[in-house]
């Protein structure tokens, strides 16, 4: 079967003030039709740059990108792929319905405007000016625009940024419905919970590279380990057994199963001042990136 997305050795460099900035560094990625994939990573990981190239909004510096076997721009023109962009602008002086009408007019056979307004729960505010809409309402409008071509692949770049808890929950409920219809959904996020709740597969990006790629539970286990630290009489032996390192005379190790490490340190190594802390997601990214570099 033709993959929904296929990236081969894709790089993207930008001109920086002194050195070129490598936003995306030789990544390979294959996403099959029907998959729901989270692109997880901190700010600056290269998520948006990658998605922009998949959508044909910018071209890779090197490497090849195919969307349903086509060049990205051709897939967009054919209405196979649509997106809700993080920084997708709207015209403030149009109404909600006019905005949908405008974008609908660019497609040869779009979903009817009324139906799209209904699906995105915008019917009640269809005659409201975009400038008078809240952030959540504008995001729903962007979502409505993405539904117009009845895309096979839906790309969402941090779709819930700026939404409150309720709006976020409603949005993901809507996305579940879209995925059940067999759409391929690829979304960028920096919330591990969003990847966990919604994606079957998570691709972890950091520093322009893919540092982990697999079932979401697996990535979650890697990313949610805890830091265990303690004062030890003989840290070298502990390093031999658990890995980790000495930081300011203290033994520090990152462990997926922190309980058993803590138990062993206390019972077998005579540890004192033991601490177990959960690292932030950023720490996890750093840990995984270092792992990938080795």
């Amino acid at each position, binding site marked *: 079967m033709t993959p929904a997305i296929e990236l081969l050795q894709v790089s993207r460099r930008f001109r920086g003030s002194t050195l070129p900035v490598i936003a995306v560094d030789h990544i390979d990625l294959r996403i099959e039709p029907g998959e729901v994939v989270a692109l997880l990573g901190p700010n600056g990981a290269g998520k*948006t740059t990658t998605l*922009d190239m998949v*959508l*044909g*909004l*910018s071209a890779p510096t090197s490497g090849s990108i195919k969307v349903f076997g086509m060049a990205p721009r051709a897939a*967009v*023109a*054919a*209405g196979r792929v*649509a*997106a809700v*962009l993080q*920084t*997708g*602008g*709207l*015209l403030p*002086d*149009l109404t909600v319905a*006019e905005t949908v*009408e*405008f*974008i*609908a*007019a*660019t*497609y*040869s056979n779009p979903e009817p405007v009324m139906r799209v307004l209904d699906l995105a729960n915008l019917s009640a505010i269809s005659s409201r000016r975009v400038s008078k809409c809240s952030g959540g309402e504008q995001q729903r409008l*962007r979502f409505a*625009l*993405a539904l117009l071509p009845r895309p096979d692949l839906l790309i969402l770049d941090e779709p819930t940024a700026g939404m409150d808890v309720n709006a976020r929950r409603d949005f993901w409920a809507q996305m579940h419905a879209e995925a059940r219809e067999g759409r391929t959904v690829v979304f960028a996020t920096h919330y591990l919970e969003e990847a966990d709740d919604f994606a079957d597969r998570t691709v972890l990006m950091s520093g322009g590279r893919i540092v982990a790629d697999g079932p979401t539970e697996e990535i979650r286990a890697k990313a949610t380990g805890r830091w265990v630290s303690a004062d030890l009489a003989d840290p070298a032996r502990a390093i031999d057994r658990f890995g980790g390192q000495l930081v300011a005379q203290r033994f520090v190790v990152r462990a997926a199963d922190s309980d058993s490490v803590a138990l062993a340190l206390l019972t077998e190594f005579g540890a004192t001042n033991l601490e177990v802390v959960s690292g932030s997601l950023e720490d996890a990214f750093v840990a995984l990136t270092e792992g990938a570099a080795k």
Partner: protein
Amino acid sequence: MTLTILKLEIRRVVRDRVRLFFTAIMPAFFYVIFGAAQSYGSIKVAHGNVAMMIMVAMAAYGAVAATASLGAATAIERATGWGRQLGLTPLGDGQYVAIKSALAVVVAIIPITIVSIIGASTDVEATPKAWVLSISILIGGSVLFALYGLVLGQLVRGEAALGAVSGSLVVLSFLGNLFFPLSGGWLTFARFTPLYGYATLARYPVSDGWVVSSDGDPVHEALWMPLTNVAVWLVILAVAATLLVRRSRARQ
């Protein structure tokens, strides 16, 4: 499909009441000062009088100011992310530039019509043929400046674009022989500027190509000169506009 978009774009222009007011009124005001109130207006030229020549110049200024500022506004709106939104649709870059150009022509009709009505009801005299041809050239040729605004708006980023457009238009208007007659080296240089070609062409049906120069002797321009000027600028600006619109899909 493009008609729906054009309809929505016209609706947006109509909603911006303040800009619409200045678009419509300013060239008429200029004409009243430079043309209608002056005694030399009644001097005869080939197919009309000097008042008609001044009227055409002011209508050209009005049309150019309206279309160029529209082009610059387009560039700004693309930079705010609307360009990315449109980049996710099948709408081609050339198609988009064509829609915006058509919109500009529609908008240019407003000042041209108002100046013409004031001219006709004061002391403008011209043959019916000169009227029809001049007005048609004014309307059609205004496309050039929609493209000019679009190109300059993408080169000068952000809100400074509008200033760059209106400032440069004042300079180009002087070089276009709109406000007072040029001569000598200035005139030679002016012949390569876009507003000179447009305005000279629009006045051609009235003057048969005779241009008043500031040292007194009238200068005759062959028809190919303004035609070539307009054609060359049209190609340059249309290509540049399309290429720059393509670039504005990326994040800025």
